[in-house]
């Protein structure tokens, strides 16, 4: 990794060792999502791994950061 930024590198990398989020793969209506569990019934989309069509990558509901309520 070569960082080319105006931010000091020590600021950018601060807390890098302790930050280890856990993600899970989830099949959601035919789409493979990478999600982070935020509660018993909610997951937050980290990334759409594979959509039904490529247009899924433009779907607002499947954008990273959106929360899916499972039940």
């Amino acid at each position, binding site marked *: *990794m*070569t*960082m*080319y*930024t*105006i*931010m*000091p*590198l020590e*600021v*950018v*990398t*601060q*807390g*890098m060792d*302790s*930050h*280890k*989020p*856990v*993600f*899970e*793969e*989830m*099949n*959601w*209506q035919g789409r*493979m999502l*990478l999600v*982070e569990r*935020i509660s018993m019934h*909610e997951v*937050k989309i*980290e*990334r*759409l791994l594979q959509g039904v069509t*490529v*247009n*899924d*990558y*433009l*779907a*607002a*509901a499947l*954008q*990273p*950061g*959106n*929360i*899916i*309520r*499972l*039940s």
Partner: protein
Amino acid sequence: MSQYEIEIDNGTPQLQMNKVPHANGFTSDQPPQVPAMPQEPMADKAPPTVQNIQQLGTASIPSPGESNIYCLNIIGQVEGHIILPPQNKTTKYEHIIPQLVAAEQNSKIEGVLVILNTVGGDVEAGLAIAEMISSLSKPTVTLVLGGGHSIGVPIAVASNISIIAETATMTIHPIRLTGLVIGVPQTFEYLDKMQERVVRFVVSHSNITDVAFKELMFKTGELTRDIGTTVIGTDAVRAGLIDEIGGIQTALQHLNRLIEVKRATGTTDSIVNKKGFVENGNIQQNSPEGQQPSTTLYTEQEQSSIPSQSNASGRGNQI
């Protein structure tokens, strides 16, 4: 592959899952507790349409919408191979690239607007995004708001037409590991190669010359922690880095006009020739934000395809 399976047939939603911990993890853009959209509890035996409304907030899987322009935000750090800690607001390579691919192949999308406010980031990821934008077949306009620093510079110049807000800044400085002394000659040579990639891309996609760009990059006395230059709005245009001063209105005007040209001629090849622009010596004059540009960026032939455009002169014309 592990996965969730939602079983609704027996009336009771059941969740089966296997955790796949990723050693390196993946960062997220927002705090986990902030819900992105309101959700209602899922009914046990709701029909598929109702389930869609409850789960996704819409009756069907959302389409790109009515607009023929796709807007892309690039904000904070450009994140590539290494996950950055959560104090960084990041734009991730793996989010942007598939969106650009989808925008390229989606027939409803006719133009891409990229809005930049970035402090820089990973060289590989930044150059990849810049190359993707520059190789789109659809018209592209970039608008630099706030800042387009470091690796934001090649992204800013990657489009057909680049716009910068009058108050926005771009910091041009050398690539380095820590800002301290370079230890061994090999490290210097490696960073020099990385730097050369950036310089070459910027020079080939804007009107600035190699010498002028490097002069800005290695200038002393401007930055407190580094060598380099901060160019603000008009300075970026004067240097040939950015095409024009403006805001969202200017950016959309240009994008819509480019889309019309693309519709009429079926190609974007002749729309803007940045290097030709330099050779002609026809440097764009700065215009205050919100005003119609004093010179335009289209050839006369292209202008003729747009009835509303009257002042035909500028880039691409053989003077």
